[in-house]
């Protein structure tokens, strides 16, 4: 059977012949041109269907390999984050056994070892709980809410820890903001994650600024800026990756920002990380004012 290209060329030649041949002699090439056109159309439909299914298969392969790469990265992160506290527990329990083998076991030192083991178990539990949070299917219940209020609730909470370190929390809320369709508990969790990070980044005598407002394209934003060391340029693209952390061992699971990003995404918004020109990091959550995002996605 001739292919689509030959049939198309034959159609064109026959149509041309029909156009330059006087009636009734043009009828034969005209009919043949129609037949070729119909065959070419059928042939092209089959080709299109075949390439569409090939494209679907390739898309599926790409999706699967990306999924496997992501699983590999997360598994590697989990292994590292869990194996470190497990290593502390392993050596600490051996030390505890050594202490208990003494004729007169030093009770205070043994208790210290036990406390270390307990704290490392908590560290492992924090990681697994946060992982469950990351894997959880969130179905946000979006209701018109006061964005400033959500931020302020968390700011007050964080301020209790920040004050003894002389860290100031400056508020620059846009009081004219309309109600925003968001899930208040999830928004509070996202805000808390950003505020805790900011307070840890600035350390003693630092400053954290909370700001809300409208963007030029009709959305609203919530911004948390700090006077800390900022984010190294090379790390900016990785801060939302699961298990990426610049904190000391045991101080962060590297899951807070991943969870925050997921929450914001579920609320139909976007989150970005940047460095301020004058120093320090700034995280901006942008949310739509209309309820547009499909919320039941996993």
């Amino acid at each position, binding site marked *: 059977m001739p292919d689509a290209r030959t049939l198309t060329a034959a159609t064109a030649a026959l149509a041309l012949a029909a156009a330059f041949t006087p009636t009734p002699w043009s009828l034969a090439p005209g009919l043949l041109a129609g037949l070729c056109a119909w065959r070419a159309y059928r042939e092209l439909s089959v080709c299109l269907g075949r390439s569409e299914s090939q494209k679907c298969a390739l898309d599926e392969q790409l999706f699967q390999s990306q999924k496997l790469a992501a699983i590999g990265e997360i598994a590697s992160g989990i292994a590292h984050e869990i194996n470190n506290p497990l290593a*502390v527990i392993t*050596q*600490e329990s051996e030390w505890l056994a*050594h202490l208990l083998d003494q004729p007169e076991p030093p009770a205070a030192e043994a208790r210290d070892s036990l406390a270390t083991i307990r704290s490392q178990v908590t560290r492992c539990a924090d990681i697994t709980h946060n992982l469950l949070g990351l894997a959880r299917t969130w179905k946000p219940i979006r209701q018109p809410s006061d964005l400033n209020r959500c931020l302020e609730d968390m700011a007050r909470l964080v301020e209790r820890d920040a004050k003894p370190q002389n860290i100031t929390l400056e508020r620059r809320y846009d009081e004219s903001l309309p109600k925003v369709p968001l899930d208040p508990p999830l928004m509070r969790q996202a805000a808390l994650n950003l505020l805790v990070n900011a307070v840890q980044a600035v350390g003693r005598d630092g400053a954290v600024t909370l700001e809300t407002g409208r963007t030029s394209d009709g959305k609203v934003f919530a911004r948390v800026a700090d006077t800390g060391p900022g984010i190294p340029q090379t790390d900016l693209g990785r801060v939302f990756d699961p298990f990426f952390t610049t904190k000391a061992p045991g101080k962060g699971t590297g899951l807070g920002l991943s969870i925050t990003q997921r929450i914001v995404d579920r609320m139909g918004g976007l989150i970005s990380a940047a460095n301020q020109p004058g120093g320090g990091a700034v995280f901006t959550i942008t949310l739509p004012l209309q309820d547009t995002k499909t919320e039941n996605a996993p």
Partner: protein
Amino acid sequence: MTAPVRLLCVDDEERFVTTLSRLLALKNMAVTTALSGEEALGAFAPGAFDVALVDVKMPGISGVDLLTELKKRDPDLEVIILTGHASVDIAADIMSRGGSDYLLKPCPTSEVEAKILSAMERRAARAGG
């Protein structure tokens, strides 16, 4: 009694490095600890240590870069890398940079001790020609 093994133990997990060094001290080892690559390089002098036990993931100089620097300063030093996650790529990278061996955390102290003693045997064999 043989001379104690002079060990440099580098890991940013302070409690891990402290307890491991106490346990290894019970096994006739003189352990110097460092909590970062920078601190380790500050404490290091060629010929001062027999073996270095180095964690891979540390803020600042990474364990793999520290391995390269230590081997540059003292080619006879045996370097064992500690890692929280094993991968063929990391193992290959460690070996290509002159690392003696690598250990996957968590591991019992007896395993750490066995790796160190095996590294000491290699060091003695090399010195013996």
